[in-house]
C-alpha cells in the first residue's frame, strides 16, 4: 500500500508540474518521471510486460522525440505577455472557459466514482505471462495487430512529409 501511494503521489505531482512549468524541457523531464511512477504501478498490478514496454516505448522513445523537437526548435517558453502575470483561472476569454471545463470534468468524475464501486480486493487470477499475451495478440487480435503496423507506416511517411522543408 505504501508503494501504491508513493507511486501515485509521484505520478500526480509530476503531472501537475508538467502543466505548470514554463520551460518545456522541464515539462518533458517531469513527464518522464510520471511515466516511471506509472510503470511502477503497472508492476503492482501484476503486469510486468506492460511496465517494461511503458519504459521502452513511452519514456525511452516518444519522450526522446519530444526532447529532440524541443531542443531543435529551441522552443520559446514565454507564451502571451498576459500569462506571465496572471494565474491560470483568472485569465481572459478562452482560457477561463477552458479552466472551467476542466473543473466541470473533475466534478463529473468525482460524482461517477462516488456512486459506489468495488471496494474489495482484486479477485480473480492475474494474467502476467508474456506468452499468454503474445498468443492472444497473434491469434484473437491478429487483424488489429496488422492494422496497427500499417498505421505506424502511415505515421512515419506522414511525419517525414510534413516536416520536410518545402523551399
Amino acid at each position, binding site marked *: *500500500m505504501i508503494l501504491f501511494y508513493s507511486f*501515485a503521489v509521484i*505520478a*500526480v505531482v509530476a*503531472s501537475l508540474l*508538467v*502543466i505548470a*512549468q514554463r520551460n*518545456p524541457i522541464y*515539462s518533458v523531464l517531469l*513527464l518522464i518521471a510520471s*511515466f516511471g511512477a506509472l510503470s511502477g*504501478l*503497472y508492476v503492482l*498490478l501484476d*503486469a510486468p*510486460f*506492460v511496465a517494461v*514496454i*511503458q519504459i521502452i*516505448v*513511452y519514456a525511452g522513445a*516518444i519522450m526522446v*522525440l*519530444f526532447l529532440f*523537437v524541443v531542443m*531543435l526548435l529551441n*522552443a520559446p*517558453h514565454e*507564451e502571451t505577455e498576459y*500569462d506571465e502575470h496572471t494565474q*491560470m483561472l483568472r485569465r481572459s476569454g478562452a*482560457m477561463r472557459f*477552458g*479552466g472551467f*471545463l*476542466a473543473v466541470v*470534468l473533475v466534478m463529473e*468524475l*468525482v460524482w*461517477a466514482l462516488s456512486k459506489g*464501486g*468495488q*471496494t474489495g*480486493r*482484486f479477485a*480473480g487470477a*492475474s*494474467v502476467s505471462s508474456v506468452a499468454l*499475451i503474445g498468443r*492472444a*495478440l497473434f491469434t484473437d*487480435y491478429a487483424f*488489429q495487430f496488422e492494422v496497427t503496423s500499417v498505421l*505506424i507506416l502511415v*505515421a512515419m511517411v506522414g*511525419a517525414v512529409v*510534413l*516536416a520536410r*522543408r518545402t523551399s
Partner: protein
Amino acid sequence: MMPTLNDYLVLSAILFSIGTAGVFVRRNLITILLSIEIMLNAVNLTFVAFGRALGSADGQIIVFFVMTVAAAEAAVGLAIVISLFRHRESLNPDRFASLKW
C-alpha cells in the same frame, strides 16, 4: 491493506483531469501534446486495472495498441508543430487563429 480497484480508478481520473486541464489552459503547443500523453496514460492505467480485476489479458493487449497509437500520434503531431514553427516562429496556438497561412 491492498489497494482496491477504486483506488486505481480515482488515480486515473485525477491524472486524466490534469491532462485535460493542461490541454485547455496551456498556450504552448508542445505542452498541449504532453498533456494529451498524460491523458492517454491515465486511460492505460484504467485498462490495466480493469484487466487485472477481471483476470483477463485483454486489458494489457489494449494498452499495447493504445501505446502504438500514441507513438504514431506524437510523431505526426510533432511534425506538424515543426512545420508550424518554421512558418510563424511561435508555438502559441493563438497566433495561428486566422485561416491565412
